[in-house]
């Protein structure tokens, strides 16, 4: 069972307490953007077999959105961090690189 620590309330929550929200750090495009950019933002997903930065909500806890770095091939969790973060924090990137040297970044 997947267990993620909510970075807001510190609770180690198992997945029935959480709701998944898909890929994190998507660059938003709106009016004035090209069709390609808007399509990529709306629909195209990295869907990696490996490290995935993703959104979760502590739905049956504090109710807040947070982000997690997790391996989709092994379910290993590298860490969780605040939603108000434009890219994964340095210590999580370091942790990922130590365990997955071939990792090419989150985008």
């Amino acid at each position: 069972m997947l267990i993620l620590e909510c970075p807001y309330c510190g609770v180690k929550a198992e997945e029935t307490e959480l709701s998944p929200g898909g890929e994190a750090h998507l660059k938003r495009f709106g009016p004035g953007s090209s069709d390609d950019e808007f399509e990529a933002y709306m629909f195209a997903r990295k869907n990696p077999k490996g490290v995935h930065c993703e959104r979760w909500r502590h739905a049956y806890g504090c109710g807040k959105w947070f982000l997690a770095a997790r391996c989709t091939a092994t379910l290993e969790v590298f860490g969780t961090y605040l939603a108000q973060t434009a890219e994964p924090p340095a210590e999580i990137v370091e942790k990922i690189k130590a365990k997955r040297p071939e990792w090419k970044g989150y985008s």
Partner: protein
Amino acid sequence: MKRYSVFAIAREALNHHQGWERAWKSPLPKASYDAIIIGAGGHGLATAYYLGKNHGIRNVAIIEKGWLGGGNTGRNTTIIRSNYLQDPSAALYEKARSLYETLSQELNYNIMFSPRGLLMLAQTHHEVRGYLRTVHANNLQGVATEWITPERVKQLVPIINIDGPRYPILGALYQARGGTARHDAVAWGYARACSDMGMDIIQQCEVTGIRSENGRVTGVETTKGYIGTKKLGIVVAGHSGQVADMAGFRLPVESMALQALVSEPIKPCMDVVVMANTVHGYMSQSDKGEMVIGGGTDGFNNYTQRGSFHHIEETLRALVETFPMISRLKMLRQWGGIVDMTGDRSPIISKTPLGNCFINCGWGTGGFKAIPGSGWAMADLMARGEPGPLAAEFDMWRFREGRFIDESVAAGVAH
């Protein structure tokens, strides 16, 4: 290829069964082919079969990372139906269902197609309205379905509880020609027919890269060396994103785990397929007597081919309320498959940014029922380079252009 028949059984019985030949060959790859299909599951093999049969393209290799039919083809709950709401889906799934009717004879391989009837239970008033709409749509599409009352449901499924406290049965969408088939046999039957046409099925051969020049694919790098090709078909279900990444484009697809489980075998008690979409559970009885049970997908990206434990609990809790007699049944096995989900829950059969590369993916939780129709449409697309009427609406650019074939609203969860 020696044909299977009652005479063959008699001949072999007298011959100590020494004369059965291998169902398909396992050759080494040639230097190049007219077409390569990545993925020897049901959809990939059906694509190859119809390329040979309908279009005369037989210099074909089907490349498989693991073993033939070892992915979702061998992991589903074998349900076949075509009661979809949207016209393009109904056309495609009904084509598949109608091909299943005669597939055993056509392939000379018993796929055990059993059109035993399929019920989709309505357990909320919202579902009643939704399924009535689907019945009317199906009647216009030429797909034979009907709306039946709770009493008729009870007649068809004596073990069902139609007046449960939380989710009473308010009626059902009934497709009398829906049913099940032997999933492995579908892959094996197509594989045998492809091999007989001279196609190469290359197992234990993983594609590690796709070579292209001037926007056209020239070949694939594999663990058994480089293989050149004039056309490439990507038919790899859960790993579509991985292979698309090698080809240099992204898909509107996310891979998730879907689970199924079977009970210990019991005497025949239910001779139709029952789906309960409100509570995320569906059940049928296999010829061995096991109750075959499927549930919902996990909501997060996952490639592990095993699902979350709480989904099993939720599925069984719902089914026990609907079928009280299964409450003491022991479950024998549980497994997961990686399904490729699109936003509108409809598949992609499409050209790609690379000129001679085509993709068939996004079948999500309901690919098995579509295998023959999917192969038919994909072969048409690969042979002519343009989609035929079946695949026309299913291109990958429909998302960008807002032409969704929205079955997520129409079908609830189960596909």
